[in-house]
């Protein structure tokens, strides 16, 4: 089953600045698990749009119980593809990001549209959407529980440009050292993430399972390009 998230953010920064910063968002203090970044495709189309593909690799950190259950995932990095289209005429940037491997564990897809605000050109509107699915029993419930918290916090808020381009983590929202940090960070947790053993594998009481998930899970909806990271406290 696929879980869908979306939220809208107004960024108090011009679209030109947002897009320029998009290319420079790594590294930043919140992306310590992004190991490498490469542009592997780039072309300007006949209608003057810029197509790009970036390949990112991230560490994959799993708790010990997950290492035991998914030994083949253990040491392999997560490969993430980020495809993007910049349209300088309509002032829109659309990005689509997903993980290439570890897909039996979880697939995370994220689409972001950065659009210059028509009535307020000093602002950029960002709509983020994510589709998350996991075939692993027990994972989908923790993701569902957390989903309500993170999207409600971030609907239609006027953030500082840095927080807005950023993410759901409160720490990041308070502000960051560098504009690059603002635009992108990854949760410090693994891209594919971690689960409390009890929540994931299942428990005696469903209520205990939800409780565990609520206290133990922190979903950081990445700022458009990193994956959604279920995190374990």
């Amino acid at each position: 089953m696929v879980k869908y998230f979306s939220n809208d953010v107004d960024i108090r920064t011009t679209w030109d600045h947002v897009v320029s910063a998009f290319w420079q968002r790594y590294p930043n203090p919140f992306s310590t698990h992004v190991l490498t970044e490469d542009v592997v495709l780039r072309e300007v189309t006949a209608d003057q749009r810029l197509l790009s593909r970036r390949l990112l690799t991230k560490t994959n950190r799993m708790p010990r119980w997950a290492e035991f259950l998914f030994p083949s995932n253990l040491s392999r990095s997560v490969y993430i593809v980020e495809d993007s289209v910049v349209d300088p005429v309509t002032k829109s940037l659309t990005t689509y990001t997903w993980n290439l491997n570890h897909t039996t564990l979880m697939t995370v897809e994220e689409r972001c549209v950065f659009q210059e605000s028509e009535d307020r050109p000093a602002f950029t509107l960002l709509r983020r959407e994510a589709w998350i699915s996991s075939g692993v029993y027990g994972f989908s419930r923790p993701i569902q529980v957390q989903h309500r918290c993170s999207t409600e916090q971030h609907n239609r808020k006027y953030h500082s440009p840095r927080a807005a381009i950023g993410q759901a983590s409160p720490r990041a929202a308070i502000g960051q050292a560098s504009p690059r940090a603002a635009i992108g960070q990854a949760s410090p947790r693994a891209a594919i993430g971690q689960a409390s053993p009890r929540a994931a594998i299942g428990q005696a009481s469903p209520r205990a399972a939800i409780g565990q998930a609520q206290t133990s899970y922190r979903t950081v909806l990445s700022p458009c390009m990193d994956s959604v990271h279920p995190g374990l406290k």
Partner: protein
Amino acid sequence: MLIVLKMNSVGEDCTDLKREYDQCFNRWFAEKFLKEDRSGDPCTEMFKKYQHCVQKAIKEKNIPIDGVEFMGPNKEKPDS
């Protein structure tokens, strides 16, 4: 002392080429592309060298990116 942090390439030997290209691209992007100036891309040669290196590294590491359709998974999603 100014410490500038930069990302590495997935190909260890490609990092310098990557950074050189990125610098060229960022300048071109802000000064030309966004201003709809189509007077030519000064980064083409740099990009070729960088790509030659990184594509080799991708093959060596068996990264399954070859043949992946541009924005493939987006096709089956409704427009936002």
